[in-house]
Every structure is written in C-alpha cells, then in structure tokens.
C-alpha cells in the first residue's frame, strides 16, 4: 500500500519526517466542549439516542474514572483530562457505499492508500473517521450466515440484547482508570458476532484516524465468536501529527467460546504527540484459540498489554507484538496470559526496536492459577537497540500457583552488528538500507503472520521510521 501515500514534508532537518502527516479542514456536525463531567457524558448519550442502561453505564463509569488514580507504573502520563474534547461527530449519517462518503474523507483515505485495500477486500471494510463510523460495507454471504459486523453504536440500536449481555463483562469499567474513561465516553469501534460453526475466511478490517486537535478517540470494540466459529479482525491505523497532546484510549473485549478461534491484528502508527492507553482482553473457553498480533509505532506513550484469560481446559492464547520507539517516544507494551484451567497453553513473542533516543519496555504477566495443571507457557522477548541514546527494558512478571506446569522465558538484547552492516554494504546497499533490512529481518517472524497488505505496509512503515537514522 505504499502507493498513494504522500504527505507534505514539514521539518526536513528533524530526521523524523512523518509521511502520514496531512490533515483536512475540520467539518463537524457536532463537537462537545472541552473537558469531562456528567453533563458531557449525558450529552454524548443523548446525541446517540442511547437506551437508559447505556447512559447509566456511562455515568457509573465516569464516577469510577474520577475515583481511580492514574497508574504509577508504565510511562509518564502528562495529560490534562479537562483539556480534551471527548466527542466529535463528523457527519450526520453513515455512508453505505463509497459514493456516500464525503469528498474530504475520501481524500484522506486516498492519502492513506485505503482504496486499494477497499478494492481487494470489498466486503468487510469498515472505516472510522473521527469518532463515528462513516462508511461500511459487508459482504452478502456474511450477513446470510448471520455474521454481524458493524460499529458499536449501531449495534446498541440494532442488537441491544447481544451487546448488553457482553459489554463490560470482560473489561469492567472498574478494571483500570482508562477502561473507566472509555466506558464513560466511548464512541465507535467495531461489534462483531460470529454464530456457531461459521468460519469467516477473509480478514474483517477497520481503519481508524484521528483528525481533530486535542481530541480523544475512545473506540469500544466487542467481538463474540460463538462455539466452533472463526474470525480474523484487522485494525490498521495511521494518524496525522499535531503539536498538542491527544489521547487515544480504546477498550477491546473478546469472547472466544468453546473450540472457536479468533485472531486480532493491529498495526498502529500514531503521531508523536498521542497518548495511546489501551485495554485489550480476551477470554478463551474450552479448546478455544485467541491470537493477538500487535504492532505499535509512533505515539508519545503507548501502554498496551493484550491479555488472554484461558478459563476452560485446553484453551490457548498467543500474543505476538512489535514495538518501535523513536525520538520522544516510549512504548510500554507487552502481554498478559492467565492460565485458569488445566491443559491451557500460551506463547508470547515480543520484539522491540529503539532508535534516536526512543525507549521501549516489555511488560508482561504470566499467571498460572492453582489446579491449572499441565499448563504450558513460553515467553520470548527480543530487543534491538540501534544507537547509544536509546533504551530497552524488560519487566516480566511470573506468578505460578501450581507445580505441574512448564514455563519458559527467554530474553535478548542486541545491537545492529558492524559486521552485518559491512556484509550488506559490500553488496551495494547503503548503510541506511542495510539497517532497514536488518530491522525488517528482526521483525520478520511476526510480520509473516500479517495479511499480505499489512506485511507490506509494516515494512514500509519501518522504512519510513528508519529514514535518516544513520549517518
């Protein structure tokens, strides 16, 4: 998807050219005032014509948000919560086809190279512009099979029972401060329901984009994969760069029922001023498989630890993550696996790259509860540091209350070797090209798990991040 991606370079000397930096003039139907209180939350709920139970859920969550302290671990969260817009509605109706999408939004998507993806995956594309989903199309046979793929706001209107039964059950608002915040002000996100035995054989995708200064984006995604069903959800993200803080705080809840499979793939490339504080958690039932594939680039601070709770025998959780931290960026990313039943297994593979003074941390939890006998877990985290100014840390937490288990943990930190560089440059590659190749090779074990287009995009993003990094 490298074609069609063009931006106006701004500070050529910074060495940090973000080619995804472009913006459209803001045209909004509704924009809430800055700040957060019960009035704003009521207003959001009213704008969306929500049922009372959701309004109450939001108001309860707001109280929890106000009561909870900001986490003291992870990164430095220097945010003024009253200096943020919590809800912006870009246009008053949802487009059903590409023709219905407003022209400026199309322009933005063009710049992101989305139409190519659209052509290829004509079906499951959902695109989110600002806080609301403005465009979506769903393949015919999917709806025939009873698969629901819509934005969460629509789901509340059209499938209220299904949403009410599951929302907030995996990540209750009381879980942490940012889960509470999301629960109070959430907007957009995807809702997916896959009925028993249905296997969706192509990835469902969504594109996200933040476009208003000082605007928080709080999407709420809920995925329910019923017994024996399968789905792969892909979320890609690029964002323009702004000078003031911007907050992104999503909640993603996933339920993978008996013998079902779910894979959730994310590539996020946030602008350098964005705080990306996300809670992602899945529950895997008997014999179910949950896989998180998570790529984090950009942002000022990312705190994200996709989790799998294996609550019934034979469940499996897999988390593969890539973090790339450059100047002024802190990636505090990792994974959590909780083995709460016998014969459950998990694998965590984390790869981080730090350059130009960037900092990446792996923070992970492996927890095995009593009686979760014969459980197996393996953790591998590899860090690549590109220069002396950059930093990498590892914080692995392991809590095991059962003897009869197998736990493995490996960690490595390496630098790009002079000999590797010489070998590649002796074949005609410039030093920058050689470094990029080594970095792309380093993350290859994870990139090859991505759908083809995303693999290309990921490699392209790495190239952009690496430009001007040498010499």
């Amino acid at each position: 998807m490298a074609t069609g991606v063009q931006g106006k370079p701004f500070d050529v000397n910074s060495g940090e050219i973000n080619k995804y930096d472009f913006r459209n003039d803001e045209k909004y139907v509704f924009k809430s005032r800055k700040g957060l209180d019960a009035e704003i939350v009521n207003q959001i709920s009213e704008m969306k014509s929500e049922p009372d139970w959701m309004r109450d859920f939001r108001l309860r969550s707001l109280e929890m948000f106000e009561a909870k302290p900001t986490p003291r671990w992870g990164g430095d969260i220097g945010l003024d919560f009253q200096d943020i817009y919590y809800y912006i509605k870009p246009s008053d109706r949802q487009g059903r086809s590409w023709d219905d999408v407003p022209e400026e939004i199309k322009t933005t998507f063009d710049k992101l190279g989305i139409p190519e993806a659209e052509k290829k995956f004509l079906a499951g594309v959902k695109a989110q512009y600002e806080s609301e989903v403005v465009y979506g199309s769903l393949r015919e046979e999917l709806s025939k099979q009873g698969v629901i793929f819509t934005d969460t706001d629509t789901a509340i209107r059209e499938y209220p029972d299904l949403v009410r039964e599951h929302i907030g059950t995996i990540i209750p608002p009381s879980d942490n401060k940012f889960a509470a915040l999301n629960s109070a002000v959430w907007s957009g996100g995807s809702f997916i329901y896959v009925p028993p035995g249905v296997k969706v054989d192509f990835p469902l995708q969504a594109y996200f984009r933040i476009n208003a200064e000082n605007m928080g984006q709080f999407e709420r995604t809920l995925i329910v994969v019923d017994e024996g069903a399968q789905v792969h959800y892909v979320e890609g993200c690029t964002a323009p760069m702004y000078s003031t803080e911007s907050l992104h705080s999503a909640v993603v809840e996933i339920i993978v029922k008996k013998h079902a499979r779910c894979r959730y793939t994310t590539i996020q490339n946030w602008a350098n001023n964005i705080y990306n504080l996300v809670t992602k958690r899945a529950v895997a039932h008997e014999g179910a498989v949950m896989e998180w594939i998570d790529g984090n680039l950009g942002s000022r601070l990312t705190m994200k630890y996709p989790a799998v709770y294996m609550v019934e025998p034979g469940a499996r959780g897999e988390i593969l993550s890539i973090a790339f931290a450059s100047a002024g960026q802190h990636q505090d990313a990792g994974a959590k696996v909780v083995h709460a039943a016998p014969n459950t297994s998990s694998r965590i593979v984390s790869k981080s790259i730090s350059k130009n003074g960037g900092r990446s941390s792996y923070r992970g939890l492996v927890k095995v509860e009593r009686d979760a006998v014969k459980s197996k877990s393996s953790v591998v985290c590899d860090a690549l540091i590109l220069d002396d100014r950059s930093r990498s840390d590892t914080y692995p937490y392991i809590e095991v209350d059962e003897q009869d288990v197998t736990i493995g943990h490996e960690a490595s930190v390496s630098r790009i070797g002079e000999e590797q560089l010489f070998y590649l440059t002796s074949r005609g590659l410039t030093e920058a090209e050689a470094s990029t190749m080594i970095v792309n090779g380093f993350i290859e074990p994870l990139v090859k798990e991505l759908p083809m287009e995303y693999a290309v995009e990921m490699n392209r993003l790495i190239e952009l991040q690496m430009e001007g990094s040498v010499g």
Partner: protein
Amino acid sequence: MSETLSINDLHVSVEGKEILRGVNLELRRGETHALMGPNGSGKSTLGFAIMGHPNYEVTSGRITLDGEDLLAMEPHERARAGLFMAFQRPMSIPGVKMADFLRHAVSNVRNPERKEGEDLLPMREFRKELRSKMEQLRMDPEFARRYVNDGFSGGEMKRAEILQLAMLRPKFAVLDETDSGLDVDAVRLASQSIAEIGGREMGILIITHHDKLLEHNPPDVTHVMLGGRIVESGGAELAAELHKSGYDRIRAAHPEAAAAEERLAQEEREAAEQFVS
C-alpha cells in the same frame, strides 16, 4: 586503457597494529590471480582493505579501479563500482530472505545511482534470472527463500557467496578462502561453478591455501604473501609447489618477511596468553 584493479605500496593497520607493509598488485579484468601464504600473513586483510571494512585502516598507499581512487569510496560505492568479495565467514541476517537481499544488491549494483526506496529490479525479471543462475549452480530453488546465511552449513554459505558472485557479475572479485571448511567434492564443485559463471570475464583474486579451487580456474599469476608483503609472484606452477612443499623455501628466501611474520605471531600468542591468564 584496459580495466585494472591496481594496488600500490599499501599499508594497512588493524587496531593500531600494522598488518600489511607495502603490498603491490595489479589485476587486469579477465585475469585470475592466486594469493597464497601461511596463516596470519595478511591475505584476508588485503581483501577487507580492498572492500573497505571500517576496521582496516589504510595508513598509506593507493588502491585504484580503472584509475578511480577506491579508498575515497564507501563499501557500497565500491560494490557499485564493480567490486565483490566472497567472505570467508559470511554474516547471517536472520529474517531476510536470500531472494530479497539479492534483489536489493543486484538493483543497486546495476543501477549505481539508485537511492533508498527507489524502484528495485522488476520482480518477474529478477526471479527468472535468479532461477536460471541457481539451476546453473545446481542449487535447490528453496534456497532463495531461506534467511541469509541463517543456519547454513559451511558448504551452503560458500555456495551462497558464489550465487551472489554469479548474480552481481562484478568486474573484480576477491574470493577469500572460498574453499575453507569444504570437503574435496565441495571444493571441486565450487571451483567448477566459479569457472561456469564466467569467472574468466572478471578479474579474480583467489585467496587460498590449496590448489583445488584453482583446478578449474588456473591462475595467470600466483602471489605469495609473507609477513604483510607479496614476496614472490609466479605462474600456476608456483601454486602447485606451495601446495606440495609448504612455505619453508619462501621463508628461507625472504628472511626479513619471515621475521615480520614471526613478530606478528609472537604478538598474537602474547595477547592470547594475557587473555587466558
């Protein structure tokens, strides 16, 4: 003017220690030269200095390629100017497929003005060429999908170097002990391969201990290096003699170089003793 790689009075130090002490060598395109000599005489150092390894400091002397000053060029510029070195110990690049690596390398070498991010050789054209070269070298096509030198056997690494040589078709190539670590059959295959891919059209400097690699690439000139200098040059018969009788005659004939060799060897031993104690 015929195409020439020319080395004049080259002095090279590694970590402040002088290894090459005035090397002269003239290699014309279409010629094959053998460079022989005992361990530690400076053969590989010459290879690294020609290719531009940053740890090999040229303290004086000149290297030119068709009259152009090679020493002013970065390694990637030397490669694009038509130089190649087959490594004795090639580096592994985990996660990077041979085919991707080669496509970048070939694109750069054939289009020396290419900048990062610019077009690579068209995939179809490249694949076709790679497939035919691998066939010629009797290599399994699967090889192109493996990660560069990652988990390769010694023999596979050397074959990968020869494949690179075949694809890049340089004007001048230094083959640094492309026979080391290989059994007799593998060396014969390597020797044959170098001849088959058109070694005759290049100027080749073959660094070797043995004469097996020379079997299909008879040298026009054989050089003997001792103590950081080329002390004798001769024809193919000199390579055969050294392989058969060793370096005693050479050492006796060149006492100054033999003493330099002994000095360097002594320093190596002392450094090793210090490290171990």
